[in-house]
Structure formats: structure tokens, C-alpha cells
């Protein structure tokens, strides 16, 4: 969702992007990638949308013009880009991908300004520390790395391996730190994904959110979810009151899950109409945008019960 909450960007299996006006639902379609897009983020002023595709390209889009256009397009990774993030001061774009690298780009020029190698497997997720001095990335085998932006060095790592399953019977490795969210006020980082992947080829795996101490990486809570035999956490976010929200999508359908630090089980569960694949929350308006398998983008409101 754009910083002002008035626009939502999504991507689809025809390799296009969609811009949705909130609340009217008016849609504009952007084409420019030659493959699916897994990485989307807005510039801090909301004027630009940046997309990272499975074609290895990053595209900067002008999205506040009547006719959105491509501002810049670069070859960024070998193979799929899995995630993008923008620094709080809007100066740096970070990207991660299947080539196991973490790359930094100038938001102003699109030039590469840094590259960090240290993940052994596909890198799925990336977020900035609110100070802008650190970058946090997560990979397939549940390694979370914390990088120093200034010198590109790996500062430390956090173990999120409960999110990784090696299913020897199916000769499959599955899971990973699919989503990350940091809350420095609470000194906590949450990592979302899946566990109990007894049949990953058959979509049998349960959603899992790990609540970890940011300072030392100690696991504080494993938020497992009963009764969801088919689910993957695609995105996690913090609400202003410290509640963690996750979206799970899989053979059990689409579910929003809410967690606090008092219990491992979720404190609230909201069943979405169909299987969800991604989520973003606009904190100012308490609106949740979810992208769904049935070609729908849904906006839900989070309001206190009357």
C-alpha cells in the first residue's frame, strides 16, 4: 500500500502490475516485466513504485501520473528477485534473490552501490532497520543475517531454522524465512513461514511465526496455529499496539492471524474468502490489503468491536 493509503499495487501471473485506487477500486495495469513479480515497494513519498521480477530486473515506475510510466529499468539479479525494501531516508533500495546475493542500489540513479554475499541458499526476505544503518535478510534454510549498510559486512545472524523443513522422503527442502518484520521499540523481530512440512508437494505444511529477541536472537515464542494443515505465512507486519499480524495462504485457505506476546496461540483469526498470497497494512487507516488466488484484491478494515 502506498504511504498515504490511497493506492495499492499488486502483481499477477500474467507478469503485469496493477495499481488500485482506494477506495474506488479503479485499476491501471502496468506492463514491463517479462516474468512474475515477487518484490514490490513504494518510495517513501509514494510517488514511485519499484518492482523486482523473476526476470531479474528492477523497474522504477512513476505511479502518481495519470499515465504511469517506467522511469528506470535495470538488470539486477541472475534469476528471480524475491524481495525489495527501501531505506527510511529513501536513498537506498535493497534487493534479494535466488542468486543468493543481497544488493544495494541508489534510489536516485539506479547504480549498484553494494553487494553482500553470505547466504548459502535462495534469499527470500529483506527489511531495513528503522535507523537505516542495518539490513536484515532471510533465506530458505531459516538463516537471518544482519548486515551493516555502511561497510556491507555481516554483523551477526539469527537462527530461524524452525521455518525450514528438509523432507527426506520427498527429497525436498521447503520453507524459509519468507517474511520479516522488526519492532525496535519491543526489541523483537518476527519471522514468518511454515513448519511441519510433511508433504510440501501436496501443500501440507502449517503456518508458523517466530517471535525472536532482536538484540540476541533468542526465540521468545513460536506462534504455531492449530487447525491449519495447509498454510504458509507470506507476510508479517506489526500494528501500532504491538500486535503482530500474519497472512497465511494455502490449502486451508486464506487467514489473517493476530499474535501478542502473552501466548503462543493466536489471539484472533480472520478467515478470508479465498486463498491469499500476500498482504499489506496501512497503519494510518487500519486497512489491510490482501492479494488472492481468485484474481481479487481485497481491502479489509480492522476496527474495534462496537
Amino acid at each position: 500500500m502506498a504511504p498515504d493509503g490511497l493506492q495499492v499495487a499488486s502483481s499477477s501471473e500474467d507478469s503485469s502490475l496493477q495499481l488500485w485506487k482506494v477506495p474506488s477500486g479503479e485499476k491501471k495495469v502496468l506492463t514491463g516485466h517479462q516474468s512474475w513479480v515477487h518484490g514490490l515497494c513504494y518510495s517513501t513519498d509514494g510517488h514511485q513504485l519499484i518492482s523486482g521480477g523473476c526476470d531479474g530486473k528492477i523497474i522504477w515506475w512513476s505511479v502518481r501520473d495519470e499515465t504511469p510510466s517506467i522511469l528506470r529499468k535495470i538488470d539486477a539479479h541472475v534469476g528471480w528477485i524475491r524481495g525489495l525494501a527501501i531505506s527510511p531516508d529513501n536513498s537506498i533500495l535493497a534487493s534479494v534473490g535466488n542468486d543468493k546475493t543481497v544488493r544495494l542500489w541508489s534510489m536516485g540513479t539506479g547504480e549498484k552501490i553494494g553487494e553482500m554475499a553470505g547466504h548459502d541458499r535462495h534469499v527470500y526476505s529483506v527489511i531495513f532497520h528503522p535507523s537505516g544503518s542495518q539490513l536484515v535478510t532471510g533465506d530458505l534454510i531459516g538463516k537471518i543475517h544482519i548486515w551493516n549498510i555502511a561497510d556491507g559486512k555481516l554483523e551477526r545472524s539469527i537462527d530461524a531454522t524452525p521455518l525450514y523443513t528438509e523432507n527426506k522422503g520427498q527429497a525436498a527442502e521447503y520453507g524459509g524465512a519468507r517474511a520479516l518484520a522488526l519492532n525496535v521499540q519491543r526489541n523483537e523481530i518476527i519471522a514468518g513461514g511454515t513448519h511441519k512440512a510433511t508433504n510440501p508437494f501436496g501443500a501440507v505444511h502449517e503456518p508458523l511465526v517466530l517471535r525472536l529477541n532482536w538484540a540476541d536472537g533468542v526465540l521468545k515464542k513460536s506462534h504455531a496455529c492449530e487447525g491449519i494443515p495447509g498454510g504458509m505465512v507470506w507476510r508479517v507486519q506489526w500494528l501500532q499496539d504491538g500486535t503482530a499480524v500474519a497472512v497465511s495462504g494455502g490449502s486451508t485457505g486464506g487467514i489473517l492471524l493476530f499474535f501478542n506476546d502473552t501466548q503462543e496461540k493466536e489471539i484472533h483469526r480472520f478467515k478470508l474468502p479465498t486463498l491469499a498470497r500476500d498482504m499489506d497494512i496501512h497503519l494510518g487507516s487500519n486497512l489491510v490489503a490482501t492479494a488472492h488466488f481468485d484474481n481479487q484484491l481485497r481491502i479489509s478494515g480492522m476496527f474495534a468491536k462496537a
Partner: protein
Amino acid sequence: MSIAHYACGSNEHGYSRRRFLRESFSGIAAGGAIVGGLGSLTVGAAAEQLKSQDMRVVVFNMHGGLSQLESWDPKPGTKTGGPCRSIPTSVPGTHISDLLPFTAKQMHHLCLMRGVNTAEDDHGKGTYLMLTGRRQSAGAEYPQIGAVAARMLNDENRGLPGHIVVTPNGGGGKGNEAAYLGPKYSSISLGGTKPPPNTAKPDAINDEAEARRHAFRRHINQEFLLKRRTAITDAYTHSYEQALRLMERKDVFDISKESTTDQDRYGKHDFGRQCLMARRLLENGVSFVQVTHANYDTHSENFIFHIEQMGEFDQSFATFVADLADRGLLEKTLVVVLSEFGRTPNINLYYGRDHWSKAWSVLMAGGKLARGAVFGKTNDEGTEVVDGQVDHGALFHTYLRAVGVDSSQSIAVDGRELPIADPAAAPIWKVLT
């Protein structure tokens, strides 16, 4: 002409009366030596000549059902194409998935069948028909390609089994792979790159004691066989003697004897080591090797699993093909990459693809096959074959023809002539040279 005499009263299980008469009149049978066991096959002199040609077969079984769209028949930019793209190959105009960049450089050695329709979406039945060339039916068992290759191509004087199956954990090889050919042609199963179990003589037994043990065993066997010989006892006897020869040649199974450079080129992962093992076995004259690569049954997350699996397959397989070509072995080796079926063009709600046998691909190379060829075509979204449709029966005939075997011939068992390939099917002549 020597004929095995069995206690069951049948004077042989190899030649039918009809075939014997036909070949006697043609003057061929007189030169043929039947070495006992089940199903002696084809004309003797021709069989020996075939064995002297030293042809081999290697099958890569992509267990679970490889997606043709993420391998040999990509449809980028279409509704069914998914996120993967296509790349050019060493054959101008031929593109394959971008998940196979190393294999793309070897395309000029390969022969790609893009019009396969086997009409069977069940794992077990699909595996059966792809390995036997026949549809599974009650009351009938047919030998797998490995057993047929062992029977037709293997030179037993080399002291190595003719039918070896390499699986990640050493499983398989327990079924009736050889059917009426008899257990002699069933596979020896290797777990990864471990040698067959129990191939080292126990330290407590010295060479002299070992020789005495086997002399005694042979003597007792001989006594027994004078009155009780059957095809099964022959198979037991053969197994013992084969095991002895195998023990003498167990170094063949030791890939640490390959150079470290080659070990690096093939990759240190299981599949890379198994490909190197396959090369080593073929170079030492094993007539059939099957390597299994698992798992492709990607009903969920088809694309990330194929990225992982194809990434592992690509470099090792491409290195294997290039090595066979460089060493002149590709002329004598049929390479087949098959699955039990392909995967649906439709992408399901879990980013998966399901079973699909109506329009998929099989890759072949080597022997008498055309090089750099593509045969068959699917429509724009990969849902149907629109040109050059072939099935398992035609492929099976083609495998045999590619290594010089007349696929129209029969094996005589208990007086019945059993065609080695489905007589209702025919080779794909257009891809044979």
C-alpha cells in the same frame, strides 16, 4: 547348439519350436549358443554381433513427473507459462527452459520429443508404461527397458551386471523388472554412489578357503542340477557367479578413483556423483544404467522446486552428455530422460502443476538417433499435441532401434513368442538415422 534341459520337462525356455524350425531352415540357429536361463532371445549370431557392437543405454528417471514447461517445452509469456522463461540453445531456433542453461549448450547432441501423449496420469501405471513400453494389464508382465537392454546388449564376459539402477537410497529393483526374461536380468540397485553391498570378502576368510567354499558350492549345485534343474535354479547359480565376478571388479563402483577435477565438474551433490558413477559404469561396459532424480511431483510450489531440482540436474547432466560426446561414447550410448508423465499446463492455486500425460516431453540422445532434432509440437499453451504425437510404445521401439536392436523381434518363452516391444506400435523412424 546347446540347450538347457529343465526338470519340468521342457527342453528349453528359450526357443519356440516354431522359431527353432524357422531359424534352422535359415541356417542361423546352428551358430547360436543358448546359455541357459529364461528366454533366450533372437537369433544367436545376430545377438552376439549386437553384443559385440558394445551399445549401452542410460535412463534418467525424473521421479514424480518432470514439468515439460519448466524443462523441454517452455511456453513463456502465455497463460500457462509460469514465471520461467526460455533460452536459446546450441541448435538455432530451438529454445528450452532458462532453468537448463548448461544443457542448452549441448542441444546439438540431443533429440527432443515434444509430442508425447501417454494418456496415463497415475504414478505407478505411468512408470510402468514408460519403462516397459506397454500399458499395464492384468495377467501380463513385460520386462523393463533395463532388463531388455541387459539381455540384448550385455557382454557377460566383462563380469559386470547388465542392469544397474541407481537411486538416492538404494531402493527399487525389487519388482518384477525382468518379467519373462527371468531374474537374471533384474537390476542390481545401488544406493547413491555406494557399491553393491557385501562385495568385499570377509577378512577372516583367506583366498584358499574362499576358493574351496566355491568349489564345494559348485559341486553340490552340479549334483542337484542333474535332476532338479529349473530356470529358477539357473538364475540362482547365475547370481552367485555374477556376485563373484562383481567382487573382483568392485573398483568399478568407486567414483573416488575418478579425478577430483571430474568430481568437481559433475558436482558434489548426490545427483552429480550418480552421473559420474553412470559414466564410470558405462565406460566399463555395463549395458544399462538408470539414475533416478527426485522429486518432481510438484502439486504445490512447482516453480521453486523445479528451480532447485533443475539447478541440480542441469550441470551434471550437461557434463555427462558432453563427456560421452567427447569420448566417442555417445555413438554407442542411448541417453533417455523420462518421467512417468508431465505436468499440467494449468497452474493450480498452490503455485503447483498436477499430473498431465496428454502433452509432454521426453529427451533422448546418442546411438542411432538424430542429433539436434526436435520432433513433435504442442499448441501455444501446451495443452495438446498438434504435431508428431508419439506414445510409450513408439518410444520403446525407438529406444531399442537406437541401440541397434530389431524391435520387431520376439523372445520365445515356453514355446510362446513374445514380442520384445508392443507389436501395435512402431519406431519413430524420423528421428533414427
